[in-house]
């Protein structure tokens, strides 16, 4: 059974169709890069996977659980699906430690001492062990995004979603975040990432999915798809972003 299975997903905002019959499967351990113009539906598709976006047609399943079934307990599902946002969305009133330990403590009932150790461990992983007692606004954008990744990792998810996580960063800070991402990838995490970093997608992703006008226009192994686009739309897109 695939870890993620989207079948004919349709998403509309009023009369505007954002996803127009999207089908995609993701196997355990796969790293999928989703590329495309803004407005092509790539972020929306990602947000459907953990149920942040209700859909109007088709099905989204994670580990056999139908996400868009009203009877599904989304809280339970989201413990297994982490997401990192473009704008970090750290909790500004909480220390880095509390940002990370809130969900493990409240949702999973991890005892405080254990939670603190967990925070230390995930912060080491993203190279920010010394920032455990800082507030988010004392950190740079790149550091905040690394804390957001650590916060997500602390829930020990089976799947991680990354929604353009370097797009809001100053160019010189992108590298440190991608490095952390690579590290997470190396540990075998299943990942779906919406990105504009084509070079990074080629290097890290197993598969590239190109979205266009609310559809999956083209997909395939990263190097091949990015090296020899089969559709003129992908070719145009690539030549636009690579220059």
């Amino acid at each position, binding site marked *: 059974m695939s870890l993620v299975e989207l079948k004919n997903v349709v998403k509309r905002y009023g009369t505007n169709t954002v996803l127009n019959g999207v089908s995609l499967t993701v196997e355990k351990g796969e790293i999928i890069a989703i590329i495309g113009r803004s407005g092509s539906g790539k972020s929306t598709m990602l947000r459907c996977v*953990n149920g*942040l976006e209700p859909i109007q047609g088709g099905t989204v399943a994670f580990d056999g659980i139908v996400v868009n079934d009203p009877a599904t307990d*989304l*809280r*339970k599902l*989201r*413990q297994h*699906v*982490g*997401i990192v*946002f473009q*704008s970090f*969305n*750290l*909790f*500004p*009133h909480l220390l880095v430690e509390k940002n990370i330990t*809130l*969900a493990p403590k*409240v*949702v999973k009932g991890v005892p405080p001492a254990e939670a603190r150790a967990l925070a230390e461990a995930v912060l080491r992983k993203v190279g920010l062990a010394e920032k455990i007692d800082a*507030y988010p606004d004392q950190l740079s954008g790149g550091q905040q995004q690394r804390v957001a990744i650590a*916060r*997500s990792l602390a*829930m020990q998810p089976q799947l991680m979603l990354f929604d353009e996580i370097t797009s809001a960063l100053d160019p010189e800070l992108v590298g440190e975040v991608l490095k952390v991402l690579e590290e997470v990838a190396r540990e075998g995490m299943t990942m779906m990432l919406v990105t504009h970093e084509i070079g990074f997608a080629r290097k890290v992703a197993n598969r590239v999915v190109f979205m266009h006008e609310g559809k999956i226009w083209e997909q395939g192994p990263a190097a091949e798809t990015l090296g020899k686009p089969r559709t003129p739309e992908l070719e145009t897109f690539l030549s636009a972003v690579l220059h």
Partner: protein
Amino acid sequence: MIRELSYIDVLYLIAATRWTLALTAIAFMGGGIVGLAIALLRVSSLPPLRWLGAIYVHAVQGTPLLAWLFVFFFGLSIFGFTVSPWLAAAAAYSIYAGAFLGEIWRGCLQAIPRTQWEAGASLGLGFTQQLRYIIVPQALRLAIPPTVGFLVQLIKNTSLAAVIGFIELTREGQLTTATTFRPFTVYLIVAAIYFALCFPLTQWSRRLERRLHVAR
């Protein structure tokens, strides 16, 4: 019978202030409970609950507090219920303060970006957990200045309770004026007492706001 204004009158005025304070405390507590419920209804994800909250707020904000005092004190007695001034005032002021506090707090809750709720939801927190650990602590900081601002209004509005028999600060001032015929001096003293109550509150609110801002 006109007599001289003496320091005893000033003491009476100060003594009457305790009813002003007691009324304010009751109104604020009752209004706080109602207001919290209204604010939560207004940010609920279920439309009927939101409408219920909105109807309440509009109904109360669109009617005078005086009318509510009359309804509870005189209105209910027509139907054979004897209502003490305390009970009538507590009910009327709770209804009134609840609508305004509810609206203030709704604004503060909604001022927290939607992405904060989303971040909480994505980590597996339920609605009440998101509210309790993420939204309310941030909204609280925003809520302090307008809440204290309303509290100051409330202190001054307790004078309306005089119409149902409360002898609080303003009413005591009226009585003193009637016997001494020194309205200017008496009401100046009354105003000074109100000022002495309200001014420290606004100052305290400012300090609190600054401190919470630094400590998050």
